[in-house]
């Protein structure tokens, strides 16, 4: 059985660190499409993204679902998510 051999093979990963919890979900709406219906987030300034996420969480920025979603995260988690998307192309 080859399984044992296969399992010992290291698989190279494209990124050094895994994304912070929750960050992967964002692209479900904020996708890199030619005609984005939601504001693109990849590659934007981390401080700007963080400020927007924190304002949604605080309820001070008009929202439909972003207020409800950001309330599920701590400010620190949102900071990590902002940094992750700032680093994406």
């Amino acid at each position, binding site marked *: *059985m*080859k*399984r044992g*051999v*296969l*399992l010992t*093979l*290291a*698989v*190279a*990963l*494209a*990124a050094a660190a*895994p*994304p912070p*919890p*929750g960050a*992967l*979900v964002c*692209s*479900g*709406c*904020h*996708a890199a*499409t030619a*005609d*984005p*219906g*939601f504001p693109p987030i990849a590659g934007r300034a981390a401080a700007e993204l963080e400020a927007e996420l924190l304002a949604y969480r605080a309820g001070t920025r008009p929202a*439909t*679902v972003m207020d*409800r*979603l*950001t*309330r*599920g*995260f701590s400010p620190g*988690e949102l900071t990590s998510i902002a940094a992750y998307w700032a680093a994406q192309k």
Partner: protein
Amino acid sequence: MTFGRRTLIAATLGAPFVAQAQPKARVIVVGGGFGGATAARTLKRVAPDIDVVLIEPNPVFTACPASNAVIAGLRDHETLRFTYKTLEAEGIRLIHQRVIAIDAAHSSLTLADNTRLDFTRAILAPGIAIRWNALPGYTEAAAAVMPHAWRGGAQIMLLRERLAAVPDGGLVVISVPATPYRCPSAPYERASLVAHHLKLRKPRAKLIVLDSNDSFSMQRLFLAAWKSLYPNLEHLALSASGKVTEVNAGTGEIRTDFETYTPDLANIIPPQRAADIAVQSGVADRTGWCPITPVTFESLLCPGIHVIGDATLLGAMPKSAFAAAAQAKACAHAVALILNGQTPEPPHLLNTCYALIAPHLAISSAGVYRHHGTILVDTEGAGGNSALDAPRSTREAEARHAEAWFHAVTTEAFG
């Protein structure tokens, strides 16, 4: 018959033979819906060295989200159809066959033509199967007369044609099964759009929703919308004898404990379970759904096999395309980390469901989930529904978001 990886490439896929010094890790994804397609693409992007194989019988995928608008005549059926060309261009190997058996103990599976494939890990995204006859009388043959239109494909157009043919003054019945089932808000979106269609085209026709539940997704929002928009819609909950107990496709009758209806059109949304391959391979338990650990999505019953999407038993997170895609990304990253010798951290998962209450007006439900043992639970203080008293502009914005989401999620899955 057993084929090694090279034989598979040369014989089954027709790709050029390439000599390899060492075998690569192979991950086989079973099922090319939102979960499977998103998982395959994410995995190939995160770990390009992995041999990613996607097995899906159909060369064209028909999306279920937005299909209610097609049924109501508000949207073109072609907008639901997607191919796997982008996935193939990205180096994912597509096999358009059915998986007939999975041997978890030996990390291999068998295709319909008896080809056997080995895998390092497998990701199952098989979706749902209908539990024929779980509602007495609702068989595969009955579905041709009383369409379910719950798994995409030809049933969507059948229900659309049947709805268009309902006479003015006619009666339409939609039957909703007890939870859990695929896409918890979809029966109520469908009811809204069918009522809209009838109101516009057949003002004397009526829709009765026979519901096997007392509470449902976005209930107050739907009930308020129906009260203001659709006097032609009557909703009977479980406690108002709304549960359908038997159907008869021959006579067209639908029975509840107290009534027998003979509608011009019956849309029976039937009881469901995880797809056949999940049940046959022992990944599903006695509930009919697949228990997993929500950190890596690995099966609690079959180690080495991960399960995502509608087939899973997940607690608070609903069975939706949004959820399947979110799980797919988390699962693909976890599988890549495991094959890299690392231990994945628990993900945080989100879901957002949009539902049209009329053309250009929508409501939404959102949730944030964290794992708690073997299930996902709601994060307290987060999630919830659109405001009951939201202005029309918010409903219009959410309808635009619903369309934008459909574009984003299909682009992420199929390119």
